[in-house]
């Protein structure tokens, strides 16, 4: 795994811009709402530009780790501040940048306790960025929890339905996840005998005995699986989504669930390959149940956000299925689907956010007939629903195609069941669109005006990204391939 040090520490620059953004927001007095919002848009814009630069400056042919920054932090324990980017983490960093920027724009009309909201929001995203960049197990865990604890306040203070219950449930679930991850990380550190947390040195094969790998993989898979909404551990995510304010649930569903899947990929799979091969079938079973189960339960929901919550559970099942196939195509598809699902859910929540701010209701029966009143706003939601169904021309299609391809090759039965899940997903997405948007113009919402250009920009950006990635997926596949191919070849040897 060759490393290419960064000329200018871009990755720390991204982190810094988040933290500095938070500090400047905390310094602005509370009542200047407009100024706070402008500052946060500026800083999230800088973050987005930096991520875009890193994405396009990534050397596709060279592959391996790039933009490497290495500072030893606690030498006695072998902990080092070690940031780098490779094929797996790059799409996620870009996803976080986009969702972060659009998330800030979506909450443009917030007016209660604005300063605290954006400060905590920046802190959460800093945690997410940190996790995707760090190649040091200790820092992966630290950033995981940094992104977790502002979540409680964000949901509990600005949330919507049943916010205390949702916030408390979400935080305790995710911390229970970290309660499983920390012992596993320290176990790997102790058993490696290398006295270092840095990822690169822990990664070369044959370092751990098979038993350790199996045990550590199980702990890590369950720990990160809670965050990735793997089937039996997923019940926090719909409650959390519904309770959270829109900007937060964009980051939360769009990015935080990817941390779980990324954690499984980065820590569990790359460090304990034997454990991965041993537990692969178990993962596949859970994933397939997740796909079908999420779609079926989605059928029953009457709250827009619950529908999106359960559709995220079903889509994360596809990611998990990709990871469980132990093939290059599976990994490619899983990482691609992570990116695509992130953008799609962000578009979903952003459009629901706009609709909720106008109509003050998320219940589908009350919503009917919006398309006539707000054609553009409902247009965005319908586009997200189409992406959710895996329609070609939008990003999700490619992710699902490659994952199902790999799944059919390795587990034919599971692959077929998962693909049948697509029909049910189509049914419940269309049912939501039909009930919420079509039908005669609803008199209650007669006076509402359609989305203005400025308020529409986050959704336009997300829709454009969905379309661009959908029409030329090689943009992402070339990047992901630089990491998955060498990893799998290294594994097979």
């Amino acid at each position, binding site marked *: 795994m060759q490393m290419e040090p960064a000329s200018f520490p871009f990755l720390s620059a991204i982190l810094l811009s988040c933290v500095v953004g938070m500090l400047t927001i905390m310094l602005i007095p509370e009542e200047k709402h407009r100024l706070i919002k402008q500052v946060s848009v500026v800083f999230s814009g800088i973050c987005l530009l930096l991520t875009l630069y890193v994405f396009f400056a990534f050397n596709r042919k060279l592959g391996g780790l790039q933009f490497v920054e290495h500072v030893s*932090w*606690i*030498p*006695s*324990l072998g902990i080092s501040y070690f940031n780098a980017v490779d094929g797996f983490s790059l799409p996620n960093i870009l996803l976080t940048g986009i969702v972060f920027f659009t998330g800030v724009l979506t909450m443009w009309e917030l007016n209660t306790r604005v300063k*605290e909201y954006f400060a905590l929001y920046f802190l959460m995203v800093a945690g997410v960025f940190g996790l995707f960049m760090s190649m040091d197990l*200790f820092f992966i*865990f*630290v*950033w*995981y*929890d*940094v992104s*977790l*604890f502002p979540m*409680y*306040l964000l949901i*509990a*203070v600005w949330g919507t339905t049943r916010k*205390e219950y949702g916030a*408390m449930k979400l*935080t*305790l679930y995710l*911390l*229970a996840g*970290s*309660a*499983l991850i*920390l*012992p596993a990380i*320290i*176990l790997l*550190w*102790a058993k490696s005998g290398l006295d270092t947390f840095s990822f690169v040195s822990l990664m070369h094969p044959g370092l751990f005995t098979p038993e350790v790998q199996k045990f550590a993989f199980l702990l890590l898979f369950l720990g990160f699986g809670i965050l990735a909404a793997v089937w039996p551990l997923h019940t926090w995510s719909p409650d959390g989504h519904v309770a959270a304010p829109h900007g937060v649930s964009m980051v939360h569903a769009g990015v935080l669930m990817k941390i779980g899947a990324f954690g499984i990929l980065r820590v569990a799979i790359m460090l304990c390959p034997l454990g991965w091969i041993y537990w692969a079938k178990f993962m596949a079973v859970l994933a397939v149940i997740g796909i079908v189960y999420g779609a079926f339960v989605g059928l029953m929901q009457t709250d827009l956000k619950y529908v999106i919550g359960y559709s995220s559970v079903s889509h994360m099942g596809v990611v998990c299925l990709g990871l469980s196939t132990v093939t290059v195509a599976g990994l490619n598809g899983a990482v691609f689907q992570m990116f695509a699902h992130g953008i799609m859910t962000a578009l979903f929540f952003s459009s629901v956010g706009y609709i909720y701010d106008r109509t003050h209701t998320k219940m589908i029966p009350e919503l009917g007939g919006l398309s006539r009143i707000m054609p553009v706003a409902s247009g965005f939601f319908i586009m997200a629903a189409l992406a959710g169904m895996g329609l070609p021309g939008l990003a999700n299609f490619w992710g699902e195609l490659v994952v199902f391809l790999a799944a059919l090759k390795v587990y034919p039965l599971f692959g077929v069941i998962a693909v049948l899940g697509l029909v049910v997903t189509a049914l419940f997405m269309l049912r939501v669109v039909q009930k919420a948007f079509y039908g005669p113009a609803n008199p209650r919402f007669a006076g509402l005006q359609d989305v203005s250009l400025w308020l529409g920009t986050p959704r336009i950006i997300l829709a454009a990204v969905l379309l661009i990635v959908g029409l030329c997926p090689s943009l992402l596949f070339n990047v992901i391939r630089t990491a998955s191919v060498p990893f799998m070849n290294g594994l097979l040897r």
Partner: protein
Amino acid sequence: MNWTIAGPEIFYFAASLWFLLLSFAPPRKPAADRAHRREYLTAIFLASVGILVCLASIHAQGWLFIRAYSVDVFSQVFKTLLSLGLFLIVSICGHMTDIDDRRHNEFYFLLFVCTLALMLLVSADSLLSIYLSLELSSYSLYILVALRKKQSLGLEAGIKYFLIGSFASAVMLFGMALLYSSSGAAYLPAMAKVLPAMIAHPAVIIGLLFTLSGFFFKLAVFPFHFWAPDTYQGASNQVAAYIATASKVAAIAVIMRVLAFAGHGSAYLVHVLVFLSVVSMTLGNLAAIVQKDIKRLLAFSTIAHSGYVLIGILVLDPAGYSAAIFYALALLAMKFTAFMVVVELAPDGRNLQIEELAGLHKRSPIMALALLVALFSLAGIPPTIGFTGKFLIFTAAIQKGYVWLVIIAMINVVISLYYYLLVIKAAYLLEPAEALPPLVVSFPKKLLAGLSIAAIVVVGFCPYWLIQVAQAAAQPLSLWR
């Protein structure tokens, strides 16, 4: 026997004498609070000078009283911690309405005597010196607890604390007697040479167990934790803060010293320690869930934290000791910040209920932030010093193979986060029944809060310097073997 190495002890002895003399002076008629200010300022001055003295003598080395009292890096680091703890506690005794004004001098006198006793305890090397310094510190604390103006609460807490304390010290003494009789040596280093051979002998083990019970009382570990909830609730806020921080640090030090010398070789002892730590963790966390009074909640969380520290100690190797030392400092910082907010919110010294925290984020954002950071650090959320402490302890434990112990500890962390979040919810989420006036916080208090927040977060994020200090401090413990 040059006396310079006992610099800090001498200074604190002189300071307490000074306050003793002040308390003899007849109470003057002019406005009592002006007198308050004078005593408070002298106390602050003396405490800060005390820190400087300790820092100056950090490299002192040597023995006093023919090897009964050893001064080494380990003891000096703990002395500095204790002086820092005292300074912090005195700093929040600004307008102490909870203690009768005539008693203020006695209050500061007893505080300084107790710190002196704890310093003696930390560098005590023989059974006798340990016993004496422990008793001295306990007695001063018993009186401090009973000094509270609201008689009924302070009194009952004082009595309970006294009875359990003296019972524990009697048991400890009996244990020491057994140890002395079977090992024949009264000094820990001499005992360290003899004990490993006869560790399997019942008298020795039971003696050791009974001796440790005295220190478990001080640390509030499982069987001896009954006093903690009532004493914290009954004592005045400042005294409870002192017990939570300073006496805990000293207790950790003395347990480490005794176990470093006498604890090796017996699997039974480790089993007992594991059992005690697991039970006290779980018991502390579970009981804290349903608490309504903040100080009682903090008491149970202290019991839980003593369980975590015990994990660090029961590993019985330098990594474990340095982790425990680091955790002692972390405990000092976190507990102090939490108690500072409690003191700040209850100027009249009443017992603060969790509901009364409502609307804190509006009344004074800095205090709300301090409470938030302190509680998240107590829960062990990463960027804080609490997490680094727990992390070091868990790495030491897993290196020795106690993986399941760490998993149980992590489950306890999750339970503890639940009740910490309840408090944070009260502070950030609940709206007070009637609009309370914004809390006016004097500038030094704001500065103190800011510094403690910075300390918790910054040290949590880059703790390398402090870990080195802890490792240096753990060095002397392993020299003897």
